[in-house]
C-alpha cells in the first residue's frame, strides 16, 4: 500500500481522536505510545473511538482486535490491513 494511503488512514484516525478529545493537540501524539495513557482517555472514550473507526472505515472491529488499536502506529497498521483484506 502506498504512503499516501497510510497518510490518509492516519488523517482519519486523528480526526476521530480529535472528535473525542478536542483539547489534545493531535500533532503532539507520540505514534508509538499508548493512546489511552498519553491522551488521558477512558474506556468510554476508547469505545467511542472504536465506534468512530468502524463508521469511518466501514469495517467491523472484533473485540479481540481492540488491543491492536493501542497506539497510533499499530492502529494505522491494523486499519490498512483490514481495508486491504477482502
Amino acid at each position, binding site marked *: 500500500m502506498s504512503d499516501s494511503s497510510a497518510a490518509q488512514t492516519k488523517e482519519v484516525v486523528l480526526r476521530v481522536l480529535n472528535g473525542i*478529545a*478536542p*483539547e489534545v493537540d493531535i500533532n503532539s501524539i507520540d505514534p508509538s505510545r499508548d493512546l*489511552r495513557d498519553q491522551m488521558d482517555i*477512558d*474506556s*468510554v472514550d476508547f*469505545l*467511542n473511538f*472504536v*465506534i468512530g473507526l*468502524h463508521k469511518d472505515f466501514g469495517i*467491523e*472491529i*472484533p*473485540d*479481540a482486535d481492540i488491543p491492536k488499536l493501542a497506539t497510533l502506529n499499530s492502529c494505522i497498521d491494523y486499519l490498512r490491513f483490514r481495508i486491504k483484506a477482502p
Partner: protein
Amino acid sequence: MPSLGADMESGTLVDWRVKPGDAVKRGDVVALVETEKGVIEVEIFESGVIDSLIVQPGEKVPVGAPLALVRSDGAAVETQPAPKPAPELTTEKEAPAAETKPAAEMPRPRISPLARKRAQELGVDLASVAGTGEGGSVTSADVERAAAPRTPPKPPVARKEEPYVAMRRVIAAAMARSKREIPHYYLAATIDMRRSLDWLATENGRRPVTQRLLHSVLLIRAVALAAREVPEMNGFWTDGAFRPAERVHVGVAISLRQGGLVNPAIHDVDKKGLDELMENMLDLVNRARAGHLRSSEISDGTITVTNLGEQGVEGVFGVIYPPQVALIGFGKITDRPVAIDGMLGIRPILDATVSGDHRVTDGHRGGRFLLAINRLLQEPQKL
C-alpha cells in the same frame, strides 16, 4: 430555577427552548441554564401550555425562583416549585401587584407650586417624578433632578470566573459540607471478577462494536440491585432524618476534560437491562463532556458510583455526595494471587469500597451491601 446540586444557590438563564403558546409535557427541555457545573438543560415538571416567560436570557435568579408560567388545565401555574424562596433577588417582572391598581385608587402625589412651575419650565412630566419631600411630596429639587440628563449607571465590572474555577468552588463546597456534616465510615472488599470478565468477553465477542458492553455497566447494575436489597444505602439524609428513595437513580462520577467532576444520574438502574444501561451510560458520559446534561440527571441521584480503576487506582475511599448517604468506589482490576480450594491461583481482583453515612447505617449493613454486590457480580448473566 431548579436546584441542580446540594450547594447551588442560583443560575443564569442562557436561552429559552420554548415560547409562550407552546404546548409542553413533563420532561421536555424548556431552557438552558448556566451553573457552576456548566450549562444544564432544564426539564419542565408540569404539562400544559407556556403562558409567559418570566426570566429573560442573561438574568441570574436564585434557586426556587419561577422561570415561566405554564397553563395547566386552564390555570396558570409556575413552572417550578419554589423550595428556597429568595425574595431579595426577586426580579422586576415579579413586581408587587400594587403597581397595577386602578388609577382611581392611587393617591394623588402632592406637588409644591414651585415644583409645578419648574416642571413647566423644564418640560418634565410630573407623573414620572418621585417625590422626596415631606410625605412624599414633589419638590422643585426633585423636578430638577428628573430634568437632568441621565447618564446610565456604569455596569458592574463583569468578573466571570473561569468555568473550571467555578466548578472547583462548587465541588469544594459540597465536599466540605459532606466531611463537616456526614460521619463517614469506610469498608473495603475484594471481588473476584473472573466470571464477570469471562462472561463479558464472550458477550462482546459476538456483538458488533456499536453494541458492546463495558465492565463498568455491570458494576453500576450490581450496585443498583444491591441497593434494592439494602435500601438504607439508597436515599437522602434531610431535616435530621433518613428518607429512603423509592427509586434507584445511580449517580456516576464523570471527570471532565477541562477539569472538575460532575455526578449525573442514570435513572431507574434497577429496572433496566444491561443493553439499555450501556446505551444510557454512553449517552450520559458523552453529554456530560459536551456540556449537555439535563436538570433531572443532575439532581436525581440517590446513590453514587465512582470508578477510578482506569487511572490505576486500586482502592477508592470516596466522599459522600450530600444529601445522599452512600458512595461506592471501584478500583483497578488487577491479576492477583489468591487461594482457591487450597491452591494458589491468579484471579482478576477488584477492590470495592463503600463510604457510608453512620447516621443511617453501620458497618454491618454496609458489609451486607458489599456482599450483595459481590454475589451479583458472580452471576453476570443474571444482571
